[in-house]
Structure formats: C-alpha cells, structure tokens
C-alpha cells in the first residue's frame, strides 16, 4: 500500500511538473495554457491502474474522465472570463471556482454514468 502511494506520488508529481514546465516555455500565454489541460494525471494514473487492475477497469476510468474534462472546460472558461472582466487575484478565482468543476463532474456522473 505504502509502495503504491509512493509510486503514484512520484510518477504523478513528475508528469504534472513536466507538463507545467512545458507550458511555461511556450509563448503566447494562451498557447502555453494548453498544457494546463495536459493529460498528466491521467497518464500517470492509467498506466499504474492497468498494471494493478486491468484494462477494463482503466477504460471505465477513462470514460468517466470525459465528464471530468467537460467540467474542466467549463471551470477554465469561467476562470478566464472572470479574470478578464474583473481582474481578481488568480489564486482566489482558481480556488473559489473549484466547486463548479465538482458540480459539473459529479452532475454528469450522476445523470449519465451511474
């Protein structure tokens, strides 16, 4: 159990850091932002999930990821719109709007995937 947690922590941390660094180096900022929606957590998780639980289990996770992605799109669009219009601090907006992601993701799960 501890070994699995440490492996996930290491692979997930490295994947997210690598994609974030790629996002930093590209200009303009809107292009660099594409890497904010990179499949970093998915790549780390799915590879480990297949080896532990099999392909069917990982495919079910990928199907649910579709709902999470729709939620991500709405969340990031809302963050961008609010920041462009009202210019609040980035940390406040990005954290305050996380419930939007949760509502849309779990709403879609409840309606379509449960």
């Amino acid at each position, binding site marked *: 159990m501890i070994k699995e*947690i440490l492996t996930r922590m290491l692979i*997930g*941390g490295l*994947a*997210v850091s690598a994609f*974030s*660094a790629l996002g*930093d*180096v*590209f*200009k*303009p*900022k*809107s*292009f660099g*932002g*594409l890497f*904010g*929606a990179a*499949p*970093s*957590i*998915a*790549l*780390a*998780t*799915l*590879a*480990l*999930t*297949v080896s532990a639980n099999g392909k069917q*289990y*990982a495919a079910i*996770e*990928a*199907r*649910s*990821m*579709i709902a*999470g*992605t729709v*939620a*991500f*799109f709405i*969340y*990031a*669009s809302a*963050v*961008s719109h609010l*920041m*462009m219009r009202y*210019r*609040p*601090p*980035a*940390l406040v907006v*990005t954290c305050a709007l996380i419930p939007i*992601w949760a509502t849309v993701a779990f709403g879609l*799960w409840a309606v379509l995937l*449960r």
Partner: protein
Amino acid sequence: MRIDVDWSCLKKTKFHEYAVRFIFGGAITVIAGIIAKKWGPAVGGLFLAFPAIFPASATLIEKHEKQKKQRVGMEGTVRGRKAASMDAAGASIGAIGLLVFAIAVWQLLPAHATWAVLIEASMLWFAAAVMAWQIREHI
C-alpha cells in the same frame, strides 16, 4: 500568431515553485487512486481531469508577469492577471484535446497494448489542442 519557445522561463521558476507543482500533482494522483479504490473507477475517473495544478500555475504566471513589469518601474498587477486569464483561456481550449484523449483511451484500451494506446492518445491530445487553438486564433 507566432508560437515561440523561451527556455529562460525555466530559470525564473524557483525550486519551491517546482516543489509545489510536484506535490500537488503527486497528491491528486494518489487521491484519484484512493477514490477509485473506495468508490469505484467510475468516480475515480472524474479526478483524472481535476484541475489540481491550475491554481498554482495561474498564481505563478500572475506573479512572474507582475515581477517583469515591476522591473521596468510599472505596477504590473493588471498585466499579471491578464496573463493568468490568457493561460486559463488556453487551458479551456486544451480541454478539447483532453476530451479527445479520454475518448481515445476509453475506446482503444480494452483491445490494444497499453503503452501504444497512451502514446497515440497523447498525440491525439496534442493535435486536437493545437488545432482548436489555431481555430480560436483565427476567429
């Protein structure tokens, strides 16, 4: 719009800022695994698209742009927040690529080799994200 690569940006990011990204990324990967174990893969899968690193990245962009303006004697707050907003707009376009990635893995994984599917899905993510970005730039 022209796409440029500026490697000097990597030097501007401090060690603790890299550490924050590493910890957030690692933590959400662990949490996604724990949730999948407790409530099943259908719930755990939602967290594969959780914006875990987004607050840290947006804050970092805001801070770096503000510092850049302050070095030339300007206040820089508005510039910093505009840059973070542009980054968020890019992420929302990138989500279209992420959607393509998820659909590709869902459809291809059961019948094909894992590593081949993950590589192909990543290439599809990048192609779809760049295409969506280019369309957005031309509108």
